[in-house]
């Protein structure tokens, strides 16, 4: 219970404090990294508690239960919080080893962490909106990190589109309050089961649009390639590895957790949109000639698998969706961090990431694909699409490998002690991807527990 409050307070307080200090100074960067590390430890303690003894519920401000805002940590929320903060820590550590160009970068990353943790560990949908906005506001400023004209143009698109997405979300929150008379997630789940189907479908569509914009699914993807390709490597890693998780979490929590009847009804439509994402992202990624653009379109394709799994439904498919989100976040964080580096070692890391995207053992992407296969086992057509998508990912990933890594290393690349410092984080992430691929049991158990928490709420 205290660990939950600590995990939320550390990044919040330290983030606000660091915003007024000059983040380019060496000491400030390492304070930020240390605070994120401490947050990870606290989240680990919460996760251990949750997995052992079930969900933790804290009502803020000592209000009686049912009146105050509740923080609620269950296996699903804790999994996503751990994943997002771990990827944030990796990205900010990488940037701290390199150099930090803007003074507010460390503070903003911490506030983003606070927003993400709050979003994943709340039991109240309006509180979800507030933390969602906190995370997004921090990311709007992070998106223009570097301040070149190209980044500014992309940042404007990112901010405008995501603001519209959050207002659509807010409209659905208002409707859900009108229909159920409560903002508490567990009571909404009970009362939506007997609500007017027409209203429920409208609400579900609103949530779906809001989270699809966040995730960059096919018809809502238009902002994504511009932003990911223009951003600096660390920021692209943060946006795709941490922030995009809100979309997957929202679809799982609001779809499978709060509106299971509507999710079942829309299952076919979700599968169609997911397949469209897989094919569209794959085909366009094949046509790209630079690493960042390939990764941006690949991100659109990869979330398609998550949506297909959610559309199929059931504990196995939800576990596959969660596992795939974890795998995809790790892949994208590592690959985006290495986009501007060259050399034999980085080439090897890129190959590991490419194998993971394509789903080839021993990388962890294989486990992700395997679980998606298990989820769609009954439908041969879907099975075919998933295989086709994997083939496309194999082609585009190794095409970029050929374009960018099969060429002589620039002569300046191998000088000085900066060489190791710029590569230590990607190397660790690559090691993690291989290690989880060889020994996936903890990850499988975690995603199964998270899916269990979800289907438990639904009933």
């Amino acid at each position, binding site marked *: 219970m205290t660990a939950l409050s600590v995990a939320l307070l550390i990044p919040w307080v330290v983030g606000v404090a660091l915003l007024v200090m000059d983040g380019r100074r060496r000491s400030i960067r390492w304070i930020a990294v240390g605070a994120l590390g401490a947050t990870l430890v606290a989240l680990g303690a919460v996760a251990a508690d949750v997995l052992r003894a079930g969900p933790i519920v804290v009502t803020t401000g000592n209000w009686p239960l049912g009146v105050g805002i509740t923080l609620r940590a269950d296996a699903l929320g804790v999994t996503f919080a751990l994943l997002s903060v771990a990827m944030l820590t990796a990205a900010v550590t990488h940037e701290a080893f390199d150099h930090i160009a803007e003074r507010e970068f460390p503070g903003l990353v911490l506030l983003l962490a606070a927003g993400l943790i709050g979003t994943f560990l709340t039991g109240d949908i309006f509180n979800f909106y507030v933390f969602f906005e906190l995370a997004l506001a921090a990311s*709007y400023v992070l998106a223009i990190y570097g301040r070149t004209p190209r980044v500014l143009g992309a940042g404007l698109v990112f901010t405008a589109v995501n603001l519209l997405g959050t207002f659509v979300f807010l409209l659905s929150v208002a409707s859900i309050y009108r229909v159920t008379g409560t903002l508490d997630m567990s009571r909404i789940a009970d009362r939506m089961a007997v609500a007017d189907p027409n209203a429920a479908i409208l609400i579900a569509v609103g949530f779906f649009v809001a989270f699809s914009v966040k995730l960059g699914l096919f018809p809502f993807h238009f902002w994504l390639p511009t932003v990911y390709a223009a951003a600096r490597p660390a920021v692209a890693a943060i946006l795709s590895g941490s922030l995009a998780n809100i979309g997957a979490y929202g679809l799982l929590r609001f779809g499978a957790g709060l509106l299971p009847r509507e999710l079942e009804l829309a299952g076919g439509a979700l599968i169609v949109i997911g397949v469209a994402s897989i094919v569209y992202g794959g085909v366009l990624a094949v046509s790209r000639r630079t690493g960042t653009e390939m990764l941006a379109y690949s991100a659109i394709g990869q979330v398609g698998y998550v949506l297909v799994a959610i559309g199929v439904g059931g504990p196995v498919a939800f576990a596959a969706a969660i596992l795939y989100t974890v795998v995809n976040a790790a892949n994208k964080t590592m690959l985006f961090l290495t986009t501007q580096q060259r050399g034999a070692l980085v080439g090897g890391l890129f190959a590991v990431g490419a194998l993971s995207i394509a789903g080839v053992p021993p990388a962890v992407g294989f486990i992700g694909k395997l679980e998606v296969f298990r989820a769609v086992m009954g439908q041969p057509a879907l099975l075919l699409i998933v295989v086709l998508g994997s083939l496309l990912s194999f082609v585009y990933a190794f095409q970029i490998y050929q374009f960018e890594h099969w060429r002589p290393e620039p002569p300046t690349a191998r000088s000085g002690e900066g060489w190791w410092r710029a590569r230590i984080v990607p190397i660790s992430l690559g090691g993690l991807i291989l290690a989880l691929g060889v020994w996936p049991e903890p990850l499988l158990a975690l995603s199964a527990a998270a899916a269990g928490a979800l289907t438990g709420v639904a009933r």
Partner: protein
Amino acid sequence: MNLVFALAAAALFGVGAFLVLHRDLVRLVLGVVVISQSAVLTLLAASLERGAAPIYPLPEGGVSDPLSQAMALTAIVIGMAVTALLLVLVLRVAVAFHSEELEEVAETELALDARSEEVHARAHADEDAAAG
């Protein structure tokens, strides 16, 4: 009353969407503001009961739902903060591109993209020659 609220919120959303689709960046910001007001109005309209202001001592009869008003207030504050952020961003873009017309911004961006593509193509020219 519900119908009035619904029509007003829908009209606001429509006006906002129309403004967002304009090429002028300041109108884009105004459109986002109007859409946020549509969401705030919907939050107010979602209140479960209507009546006097919910201030102690409570008056005779029903009071209006304080929760939806609290939500609307929160949404207004957040909306104001992100609008300020968006305005600053538009200012930055206008300064960087010497224009606040989306079309000119896009043209400048296309020129930048074409230049980087050219550099890239030159870098890969040897490989293309080898492949062709």
